[in-house]
């Protein structure tokens, strides 16, 4: 009883301070943040959930927030995630950190959350609803840097095989656009084949194996992550020379690359987003709840691995996982400042 009275007095005092000075920080120790995640079925998402767990458990233990519970829908379904958001509104969360199944189709639910006074921070899979915050990945850039690298590596050009992600998902479309732009920039490269690998090694392997017999010599494979190892296996099984395959930071891909590097000096690069971006979104949400003025659109840097830092990254990546970075409050502030 006495404690709660004290807390009430304190919060009154802090409100008064805030009104007075306009700079004092509001307390977020009684705030509840939920993670609404649309998919958990691949290594990237598993790493993401693990990072979320590590960082938010510490934050809860430190009394920074009261609660940070993750929620996941089973199969990347818009309808389920929309219903999930409705339920989180009802559950009384102060902020929802969101990796969305669709950039548009969740807008109805997101708007409803905003109207209920809930802070919505979307990341990775962002939403277009204006009332939400967005921590976006420049996916098109992720496609383009692959061509930049290839241009450097093989200025003479050559045939490319493109492995795309899940059809109809905007991430796939964005990376594809970046690759298209890159090919336009360096016309010595030509995409001779394109398959959908669904960001899954087994699917990619099957798809590449299916198209390989119809292809001329392939100089390089441009990818979206989670498909490089499968592609390498398909080339090997078909008895064709291994082209330069761009990797996507998955452990199996990095391990394969290391093996090839040690055996025959194989060179490539690897690029993807660190799953820990969820923790960045967590800190951004905490800062917004704290009363900080945060711009609605932020950009998160992607994680690139090159020949030089391969070993270091591989050593830090668990088997079946993805190269990762967990973010701290200072990183969030840097991203916020950069967006101003």
């Amino acid at each position: 009883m006495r404690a709660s009275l004290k807390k009430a007095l304190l919060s009154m005092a802090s409100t008064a301070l805030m009104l007075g000075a306009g700079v004092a920080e509001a307390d977020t120790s009684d705030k509840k943040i939920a993670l609404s995640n649309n998919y958990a079925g691949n290594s990237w998402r598993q790493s993401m959930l693990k990072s979320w767990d590590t960082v938010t458990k510490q934050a809860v233990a430190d009394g920074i927030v009261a609660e940070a519970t993750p929620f996941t829908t089973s199969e990347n379904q818009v309808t389920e995630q929309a219903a999930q958001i409705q339920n989180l509104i009802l559950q009384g969360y102060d902020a929802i950190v969101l990796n969305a199944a669709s950039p548009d189709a969740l807008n109805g639910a997101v708007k409803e959350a905003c109207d209920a006074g809930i802070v919505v921070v979307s990341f990775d899979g962002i939403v277009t609803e204006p009332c939400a915050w967005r921590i976006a990945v420049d996916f098109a850039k992720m496609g383009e840097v692959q061509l930049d690298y290839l241009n450097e590596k093989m200025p003479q050009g050559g045939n490319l095989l493109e492995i795309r992600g899940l059809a109809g998902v905007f991430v796939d479309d964005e990376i594809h656009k970046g690759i298209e732009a890159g090919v336009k920039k360096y016309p010595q490269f030509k995409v001779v084949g394109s398959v959908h690998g669904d960001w899954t090694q087994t699917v990619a392997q099957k798809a590449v194996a299916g198209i390989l017999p119809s292809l001329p010599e392939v100089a390089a494979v441009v990818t979206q992550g989670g498909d490089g190892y499968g592609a390498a296996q398909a080339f090997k099984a078909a008895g064709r020379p291994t082209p330069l395959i761009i990797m996507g930071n998955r452990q199996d891909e990095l391990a394969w690359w290391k093996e090839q590097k040690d055996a025959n000096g194989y060179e490539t690069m690897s690029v993807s987003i660190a799953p820990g971006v969820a923790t960045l979104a967590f800190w951004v949400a905490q800062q917004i709840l704290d009363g900080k003025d945060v711009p609605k659109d932020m950009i998160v840097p992607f994680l690139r691995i090159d020949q030089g830092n391969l070993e270091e990254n591989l050593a830090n990546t668990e088997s079946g996982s993805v190269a990762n970075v967990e973010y701290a409050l200072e990183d969030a502030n840097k991203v916020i400042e950069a967006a101003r």
Partner: protein
Amino acid sequence: MTDSVLSSPLRDRIDMLRDPRLLRRALPAVSLAAILIAIFLINDRAMSYRGLDLMLKYAVPIAFATIAQMFILTVNDLDLSIGAFVGLVACIAGTWLVDQPVLCVLILAGCVASYAAVGALIHVRRLPSIVVTLGMSFVWLGIAVILMPTPGGTVPEWLKGLMSWKPPLIPFPIVACAAIALVAHVLLMESSYGAVLRGAGGNATAIDRAGWSLLRIRMSMYALAGFFGVLSGLSLIGLTTSPDAHIADRYTLLSIAGVILGGGEFVGGRVSPIGAVIGAVTLTLTGSFLIFMRISPDWQIGAQGAVLIVVLALRALIKLREGR
């Protein structure tokens, strides 16, 4: 207390309660009540107009899809394409409904007609419905992705307004679900042609001998399914405010689960429209229940299946007693 002390009408009532047929019919409603009570116990905020409105909003398009599936199940077929079809409807409506409403209605009517055509194909060529509809699901999804390679599109204001309408006293989703159940019930259970339709699933030969065209019956069932699929798609984009080709992939399995949960059977024309809608609502609430329980994400997926299995196991138990 011995039997002789109980008055006979009371004993009759108790006997009636133990009647397996009644139990089987009551099971969907009982499961719904159980899950509602559990939700109210965990989260008292849910027990309000706004709470029910929020929780049940997404039950409306699922109820439409479930009724669509039920029509197909009535004639002993299974529709594996309804989810993709609802997604296609969403994309079509999101592309044209605002700018060219007449054209859009015509295209949607064409969609219903092609559903009927699929029914005719299955009937005339004696193809297994599972194979044909599975194939069609790729066709629907393909067209939807071509139409809308990236999510986007616009939804008319009247549709958004209707789906977020807040009538006095009773939340809109409950009104809508009751209306859907009632219309389907009258159509299939009360009308005389409805009896013929169900009979086609129960004993096709008898219906055929009685002079009814089985082809026409199957075509009308598929057309009805297509029509309710269109309604599902429209109500869905009214909620999401934006379509997406993959928006309703999940509806195929949800709709089958809804019909079965609501007391329907895979064969024999044994279906219940009211039960199906209750099944759809129960499935929607299961999601809410698991979220309010704060089950860890690793378990949430499995837990949803577990709820289904429990209800079906109960039904199997009742059936066992029925058989005795």
